[in-house]
């Protein structure tokens, strides 16, 4: 054990991952626990917008200023997670001129570069914008991959000595003598890498300071510690398109509203969103009208969306917070700012701090503020270095070379890998030994990347998916889920791989259900055929209790060694061949002996 002061971070979203990195870099002995995968909560369920601050430039200028500052920081430290697409605020004829002017002025007041474009200029950038738009403001919005960002932060923390435990749910906050001193966690499998089916265990972790960074779940952790953290979770829908209909972030230039943004993200576009308060961050309705509204409303900005193919939809829950005295009725009025709740000052519970509110773009700043606070509480004198030091993967720009020659990958595959891995390309692909086939064709993910992710995430294929994007493309895993599972063997047992496969397949299905019409229904039916018909996964004998009576089935025309049970069945169905082989009438009648003495599954029916 080190003698450094210790801290425990609850929550593996962007905030928690940012905090664990920051504290580890400042020399603390720090542990992060997360009940699911990294990004399991809100971070993994957002549209991936790297804000320029433009969206807040009218209503919330302090947030807008923080956004543009952090936007610049992330472009520097997280190059391999960010794509600088640029963004447009587009005014339609029915949108007010006055708001457009205020937006422009607000951007300038907050230091956000902003330029007015004519409709022609805007359409030169994005040809699929509606013909009748009035004008647009160009701002430095971008796209950010929240999964890669969290994994990179966690990796940096681990490099600095931190411990990161995923699939470890906090079941209690330990309070002794009026002070929060630790947590009790339940590991879903054992300690360390997650393994499907491995027995869970409980563990108590003590720390000098506990940070509750669980976002929309902060109230639940607060309850365990006996403090009230009134987070107001608000859900929003996001609909994923099959291709990038636009390459620039498209915002509607009007005051708050539903369905007003399209974010190009990797191979897709994400349409967003709604804002509706919910009681439980894990149990709320996900409804078709929300998806319809995304398509119908955003088609006014980008008409081709109305006929385009969506591949799935998902919902996220914003961890909104406001001081209880404000009492906004409409969740869209609640500030997007973040709050540091010092439970010593606030609730007479030393040893614990909660951080609530905020947004992904400012995750690093939030982490810095709370790390400052924790260091202050623990008398640690250390500077924050997270704004200067690049994340693992973003250290070196020279990786964007032509990988085709170097690693034998086809150019598009190599390019995609390099975009995801950044400066880790050499480590992951370059040092891979043996054939490196493409496992996921939609997203161009090779075996080496899959194994790198398995090393980091254990047997959890959903975590492998988040790290690599494998199974996130158009086919939604139809052609690659089983390949990903194959990659787990022999490191993991076949039965572990099978469980992981089921989990991944079901997770994909959950979002696909919101896109089941037109081409995507066709695609989903093909997937159903491949997995149920070709692989017979829906009635897999290995997964059922009832043993199969192999002797009741055809052993082949030339079989020399029929199993013992076969003798029993030989007099049944086989005799029918003689009858059935002669003609329709002989065999077709309902009077045909339907009994099946040996087929025990039939005997049950």
């Amino acid at each position: 054990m080190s003698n450094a002061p210790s801290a425990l971070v609850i929550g593996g979203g962007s905030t928690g991952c940012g905090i664990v990195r920051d504290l580890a870099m400042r020399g603390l002995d720090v542990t992060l626990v997360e009940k699911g995968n990294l990004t399991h909560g809100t971070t993994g369920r957002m549209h991936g917008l790297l804000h320029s601050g433009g969206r807040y430039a009218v209503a919330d200028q302090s947030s807008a200023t923080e956004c543009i500052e952090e936007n610049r920081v992330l472009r520097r430290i997280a190059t391999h997670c960010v794509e600088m697409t640029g963004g447009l605020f587009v005014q339609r004829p029915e949108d007010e001129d006055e708001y457009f002017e205020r937006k422009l002025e607000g951007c300038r007041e907050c230091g956000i570069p902003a330029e007015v474009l004519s409709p022609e200029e805007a359409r030169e950038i994005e040809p699929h914008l509606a013909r009748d738009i009035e004008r647009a403001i160009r701002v430095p919005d971008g796209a950010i991959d929240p999964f890669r960002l969290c994994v990179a932060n966690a990796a940096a923390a681990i490099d600095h000595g931190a411990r990161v435990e995923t699939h470890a749910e906090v079941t209690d906050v330990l309070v002794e003598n009026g002070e929060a001193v630790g947590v009790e966690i339940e590991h879903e499998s054992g300690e360390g890498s997650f393994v499907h089916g491995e027995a869970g265990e409980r563990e108590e972790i003590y720390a000098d300071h506990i940070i509750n960074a669980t976002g929309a779940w902060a109230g639940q952790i607060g309850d365990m510690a006996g403090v009230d953290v009134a987070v107001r979770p608000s859900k929003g829908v996001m609909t994923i398109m099959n291709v990038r209909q636009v390459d620039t972030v498209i915002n509607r230039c009007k005051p708050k509203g539903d369905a007003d943004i399209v974010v190009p993200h990797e191979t897709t576009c994400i349409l967003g969103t709604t804002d509706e308060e919910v009681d439980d961050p894990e149990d709320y309705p996900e409804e078709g009208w929300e998806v319809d509204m995304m398509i119908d409303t955003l088609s006014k900005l980008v008409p081709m969306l109305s006929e385009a193919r969506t591949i799935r939809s998902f919902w996220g829950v914003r961890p909104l917070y406001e001081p209880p005295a404000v009492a906004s009725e409409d969740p869209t009025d609640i500030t997007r700012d973040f709050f540091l709740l010092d439970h010593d000052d606030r609730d007479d519970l030393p040893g614990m701090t909660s951080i609530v509110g905020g947004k992904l773009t400012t995750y690093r700043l939030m982490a810095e503020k709370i790390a400052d606070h924790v260091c202050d509480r623990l008398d640690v004198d250390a500077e924050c270095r997270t704004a200067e030091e690049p994340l693992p993967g973003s250290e070196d720009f020279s990786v964007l070379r032509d990988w085709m020659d170097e690693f034998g990958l086809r150019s598009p595959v190599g390019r995609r890998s390099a975009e995801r891995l950044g400066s880790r390309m050499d480590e992951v692909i370059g040092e891979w030994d043996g054939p490196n086939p493409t496992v996921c064709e939609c997203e161009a993910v090779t075996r080496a990347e899959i194994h790198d992710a398995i090393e980091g995430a254990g047997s959890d294929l959903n975590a492998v998916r988040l790290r690599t994007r494998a199974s996130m493309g158009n086919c939604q895993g139809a052609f690659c889920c089983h390949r990903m599972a194959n990659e787990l063997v022999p490191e993991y047992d076949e039965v572990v791989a099978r469980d992981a496969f089921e989990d991944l397949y079901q997770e994909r299905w959950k979002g696909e259900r919101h896109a089941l019409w037109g081409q995507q229904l066709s695609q989903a039916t093909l997937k159903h055929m491949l997995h149920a018909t070709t692989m017979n996964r829906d009635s897999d004998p290995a997964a059922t209790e009832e043993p199969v009576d192999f002797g009741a089935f055809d052993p082949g025309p030339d079989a020399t060694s029929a199993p013992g049970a076969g003798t029993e069945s030989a007099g049944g169905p086989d005799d029918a061949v003689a009858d059935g082989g002669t003609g329709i009438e002989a065999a077709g009648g309902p009077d045909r002996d339907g009994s099946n003495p040996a087929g025990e599954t039939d005997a049950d029916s």
Partner: protein
Amino acid sequence: MPIRDDVVVVGGGLAGSMAALSAAESGAQVRLISHKKSTLRQASGLVDVLGAVNGDAPVSDPFAAVDQLPDKHPYRVVGVGGIREGLRRFDDVVGDRYRGAHTDRNALVVTHGGTVKPTARYPVSVAPGLASAEEDTLLVGFRGLTDFDAGAAADHLEAAGVPFDVDGSTVDFPIQFRDDARTTRFARALDKDQKDVRARLADAVVAELDAHDRVGFPAMLGDDHEPEVREFLEGRLSATVFQIPTGPPSLLGMQLEDLLIDALERAEVRLSTGNPAVGYETDEGELTAVTVDRRGRDVPYYADEFVLATGGLVGKGIDSDRESVVEPLFGCHVPHPADRYEWSEAEAFGDHAFARFGVVPDDDLRPTDADGDVHFRNLRAAGGVLGGADVAREKSAAGVSISTGTYAGRRAGEETVR
């Protein structure tokens, strides 16, 4: 001059091909119109008839289980007799390239995922690998191939309780292709015996053999010369060699497609491929022509009888948008819940309504409208475009296509030569 035949079949998959062959058998002049490559190349090449009913699986006698199917199932229209008629015709088409006709019982075939699945007819190269034969088995996979992992498949088969010992072994294919080469590449190399690949493959596998009776490879042991490749390997390995059906691109599926095309040519069915059927013409409530879009020009194909075999949701014989589900060519009625969220279930392998989407046939396989009246006296439907069957869960896709195709084709032919 107008293009005229006795029977026009729309759709070149298994159902359309069987319909065309069956109609031609009756003496009619038949034309088969197909647009894109059929979905056969995505299928395993196995001919499932019925493998699961009401949650009971695997079914060992598919014929005995037919009367447990719902009334609206296409099998209930053609009956057990219709299924047998279809299989007989199929057996004629494929000749000695398929096995399974010697018994009513289903065979359990090893899948590339390591499960077993019940099927009624299987390619001759698959036959030695059936799970009911008690022969110790070595599965062989290739290091560069992601679709099939021999070790995982062997462990999975053991978990399924197969009555023999099974091991898995992964070897390097003797020729190094680019990392993401497809199975067809491997097959071609074996077909042509490039760089002595057959012998080198045998050498690689011999080292892994340990008194196994048979050796299974993913179905890529050649295409045109697959029997030769298998025979060679069997000689070198002193063990039976079999193939394991795969997903797309599926060599066994493509070979079945080739067998069908050969049979269609032998039967002198006229083939019109590459252009989509887009509309139709009628006269006093009877269908007189199907129109095909040939480079922007609508060309009518006249006939007395028509068979719709355009496939289901995968083949786009059934289409949908956010509000409704349609049969796009004739606008035949496709029943479906109004709320699209009722088209599917929350469980990935649930009892999905969408899996049964399709046209509703009368007792002569003619599509009916919402009131139960036939759309056209002289239009029958076959295969995936028919509703009422969840062919994926039932393991009945090929059987439904073969039996309804055969029935619809025969009936169309009978009507024209009458």
